[in-house]
């Protein structure tokens, strides 16, 4: 492959902190790679593991979850619930053969545009190093002949 692998990453942001940080990165014209597409939620506490699994099963190579710093959640303490779900999610996807490093939780306050941009840039490179995940749904097209042609060892 002469072309470099370009990861596709879905990022979840919270309306009050990390989405505003992303906006701030924009207003300050701070550059980061275009590999990430951000989804806005009201709070990181809205993050349903289903969303992460949906992103991964539809081909995303990595998922970045962001929210307010602990103690600073706009809704007081909901980012802790996101943290708890994140820890269990990592444990579960590891058993699915997905490297836990592909799902990352990063806190960013509304003023931390620079830090968020840096976190995104770092994450893109981390996923690039891990390689593509590109979860396929094309079971029907999977190479059945390959599995059918098992070694024939004559007794």
């Amino acid at each position: 492959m002469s072309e470099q692998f370009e990861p596709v990453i879905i990022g979840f942001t919270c309306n009050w902190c990390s989405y505003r940080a992303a906006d701030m990165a924009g207003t300050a014209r701070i550059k980061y790679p275009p590999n990430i597409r951000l989804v806005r939620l009201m709070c990181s506490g809205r993050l349903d593991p289903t969303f992460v699994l949906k992103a991964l099963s539809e081909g995303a190579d990595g998922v970045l979850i962001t929210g307010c710093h602990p103690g600073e959640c706009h809704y007081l303490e909901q980012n802790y619930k996101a943290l708890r779900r994140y820890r269990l999610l990592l444990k579960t996807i590891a058993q699915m053969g997905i490297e836990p490093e592909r799902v990352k939780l990063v806190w960013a306050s509304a003023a931390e545009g620079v830090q968020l941009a840096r976190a995104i840039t770092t994450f893109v490179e981390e996923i690039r190093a891990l390689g593509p995940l590109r979860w396929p749904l094309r079971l029907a097209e999977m190479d059945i002949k390959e599995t059918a042609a098992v070694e024939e060892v004559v007794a």
Partner: protein
Amino acid sequence: MSDNGKPKFAMYWAASCGGCEIAVLNINEKILDVDANFEVVFWPVAMDAKYKDVEAMPDKSILLTLFNGGIRNEENEHLAILLRQKSQILVAFGSCATEGCIPGLANFSNTDQIYEAVYEGVSTDNPNHIRPQYNYEVPEGTLHIPAFYPALRTLDQVVDVDYYMPGCPPESHQIAAVIDLVLKVLNGEAELPPKGAVIGAGNSTVCDECGRKRHVKSITKFVRIHEVDEIDPELCLLEQGILCNGPATRSGCGARCPGVGAACIGCYGPAEGVIDYGARLMTAVASVIDSNDPDEIDAILEGIPDPAGSFYRFSMPHSLLRMAKPAWSNGNR
């Protein structure tokens, strides 16, 4: 309609254990209603029939087919497509057909690993490492073994399904209720539910039927059920640190397992509208952990040594990911 005027009925088992068949037989005398009102044209456990008999049937000639078992190999797939063709109403019967169930756990492994476990396990003497050969010449001709697909699929991932009956197995009283419904429909006394509906089950989750007392949840420790000296018979199991899948599992079974001190393992599948059963358990269980510190949370989660197994025991093939990476990667990607 058959020659004797009775509507035709079929039941088939694909990659399954036979428990669904037993559950149907467990409806006791009600089986006589089945016999009285239907002509059973194809039911391998109960009567002899050949696939070519089914192939010979006219399309849509079978009124009702209960299809249990998952689709693991070519034979399962062939019968799924065939019975869809021949049936008016095709019901994905039981957990294997609706969401994959226990055979679906093989989706955590690739075929190499499966063959090794089956043909070269500790109890198997296979010094020459013989593996199945899909086409084998014998004097009488060529024998074919159905191709073994890389992962298990549910019935609706292969054909169009009309109704789903969850459960491992579906509870006999629910089966009896469904049979009653079908008979009423035949008599014009009732309408069929909308296509795609889940039948023979409740509208809520197991907690709705469970008699245990529940309070605001705040878990500091998860324990395995065998580690507990005495299970409080009145208190919610989850509040005792025992991982119970009841909150995420569709009701309809009568909460029999928690009723006798066994944690629900989730055989009735997800609640209405849920697209990934495991994710619901993940989020519910994690949200009520009583800690805000990542290390402490991880320590508490040590009490769930196998989250994928606990949360996707029955639902792996029907989940968003459908299988673990080894099943599709075979090291190729």
